[in-house]
């Protein structure tokens, strides 16, 4: 039994979900911004990749095909196999572009927070995600409308064999997720991180102290949305296909559950929450159970979603702080005191 595909999909999805969950933690956990449009910013990354790669590769390869046609997808896969640097370059370009577009849209969509309370902001962002999905689905000229767009070649296309290629990509995703973790940790323990918590805990008090709280929200949404868009790019290049069906709001709530399960405001807890949820997500797929020779009387996909709902409700009811409650702020001065052996 070859476990490589399983390891690859587990590690890759763990990395992608971790980036999403950390960005949600930055917004929801630390700043109190319920970004229930998370899946929209994730889709922005995927759509950007699909759009840019499909057009640029056809233009560079000198082929005049319909970008979302099957022939074009095959052409791109072939081109990526023969021109490794082109594929890698395009992948990097997509990462940068998606992060920029995500940041711009994120800061733009933080503006409702100027006017409305958190619950209304959550509803607005949720509806925005739905608007984008309906729009992209009905617009064929963008990424193929209802059929989606395939042939977004993996940057490691030149590596022969699905196993080694998948492992290389999983490693890359994990490295980027680790980078995201370092980034959000640094932000959280910086003076700006303390400002974020101040906005969450008492916005009025922060304003009285002369802090421009809406600017804080815009910056947090920009960083969070850029991260989500990067996760979207990683997803697009992993599945090599982008369609609107993948960007249902159910994903937003799964990511929210990762944050609440791990402990809102605690990045280490969110890593644990993401690990648990990824395990539940990946090991309850029919394909995995078939691998074990298990045949269940019920459709496991429905049962998995029901479990997600049960966990969400039970956590909010009985343990809203999650597995790991938010720790205290670490500052350079406090660390120094600790090293001196004085209890602070």
């Amino acid at each position: 039994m070859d476990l490589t595909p399983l390891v690859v999909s587990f590690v890759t999805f763990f990395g992608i979900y971790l980036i999403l969950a950390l960005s949600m933690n930055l917004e929801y956990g630390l700043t109190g911004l319920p970004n229930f449009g998370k899946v929209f910013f994730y889709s922005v990354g995927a759509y950007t990749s699909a759009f840019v790669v499909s057009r640029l590769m056809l233009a560079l390869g000198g082929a005049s095909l319909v970008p979302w046609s099957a022939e074009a997808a095959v052409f791109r896969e072939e081109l990526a196999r023969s021109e490794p640097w082109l594929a890698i370059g395009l992948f990097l370009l997509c990462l940068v572009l998606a992060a920029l577009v995500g940041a711009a849209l994120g800061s733009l969509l933080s503006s409702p927070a100027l006017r409305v309370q958190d619950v209304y902001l959550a509803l607005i962002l949720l509806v925005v995600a739905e608007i984008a999905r309906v729009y992209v689905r009905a617009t064929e000229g963008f990424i193929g409308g209802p059929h989606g767009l395939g042939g977004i070649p993996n940057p490691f296309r030149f590596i022969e064999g699905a196993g080694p290629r998948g492992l290389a990509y999983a490693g890359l995703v994990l490295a980027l997720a680790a980078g995201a973790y370092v980034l959000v940790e640094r932000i959280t323990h910086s003076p700006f991180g303390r400002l974020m918590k101040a906005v969450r805990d008492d916005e009025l008090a922060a304003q009285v102290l002369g802090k421009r709280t809406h600017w804080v929200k815009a910056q947090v949404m920009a960083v969070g949305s850029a991260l989500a868009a990067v996760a979207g790019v990683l997803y697009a290049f992993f599945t090599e296909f982008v369609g609107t069906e993948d960007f249902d709001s159910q994903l937003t709530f799964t990511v929210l559950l990762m944050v609440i399960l791990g402990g809102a405001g605690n990045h280490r807890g969110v890593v644990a929450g993401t690990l648990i949820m990824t395990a539940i997500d990946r090991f309850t797929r029919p394909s995995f159970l078939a691998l074990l020779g298990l045949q269940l009387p019920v459709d496991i996909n429905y049962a998995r979603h029901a479990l997600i709902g049960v966990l969400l409700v039970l956590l909010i009811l009985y343990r809203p702080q999650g597995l790991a409650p938010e720790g205290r702020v670490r500052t350079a001065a406090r660390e120094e005191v600790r090293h001196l052996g004085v209890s602070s």
Partner: protein
Amino acid sequence: MPWEELTPSLFQGILMGSLFVLMAVGLTLTYAVSRVINFAHGELVTLGAYAAALAVNLSGLSLLPALVLGAAAGALAALTLDELIYKPLMARRASPLYLLVASIGASIILRHLIYLAADAGGWLNIKARVMVDLVGFVGYAAVTSLHLQVVPAALGLSLLLHLFLTRSRTGKAMRALAENPDLARASAIPVARLRRLAWLIAGAMAGLGGGFWAVYANIQPALGALLFLRLAAASILGGLTNVYATILGGYVVGLGENVGITLANAWAGVPLEFRTLITFAMVVLVLLFRPSGLGDLFTPGRSRRWI
């Protein structure tokens, strides 16, 4: 403007608007009385739809008792949700955002339990086997028996609700509870009982709307989830708190998605697939600029009307 397209879309809009009214009034009622935006409200619709459809298809019930059964299923589920999830949370002084997240969880649970049951029973895509008769034509629009049942039901129940809220002692107490829960409790209003009643009414109307939907079109377990943002739009147009404005909001959504898109399609070439975008755009604009919705129309000079 071609008449042959406009009149059918007008009648379709009235039908959809009436269905949205039936489904959305409960969402407004529960928000006003308990301050929970109940995301699981869509699943109450699904439950009602399935209860009615199965009653007709499996036990050969006629439409009226099947609809009553659908309403009962919705009411029971609504009461259970409140007692098991929202009440305990509010006793712990959970924030509105926590209540929202819990209701999203509740909606996910209910939806997928329905999925599991429907999958086991082979009912993933069914329709109530009820004959819908053609009654006649108005211009180019076909009027069916469904129109003659749904529109009076929506308007009649709205009128009943109005009389209940303005004429009966219990209804007045419910309005007091919505306006100021603390003051209501201090005035010895039986808060817990009224709250249960509000959830029962809300669930029953949602279930009834679902029952009609099972006659109108095929149903699936995701029915309520697919409808939720649109029926919530009617409620949001009602400022989430005003029943009268919600009724108006239901027709605005129904007509917007039918007459509105037909006009936009004829004049500006907007694709018909964008019909829900009209509703969603209204939701975003109202939430941003007029959180009290159309409620201002009914109470000029006051900031917000409760129920």
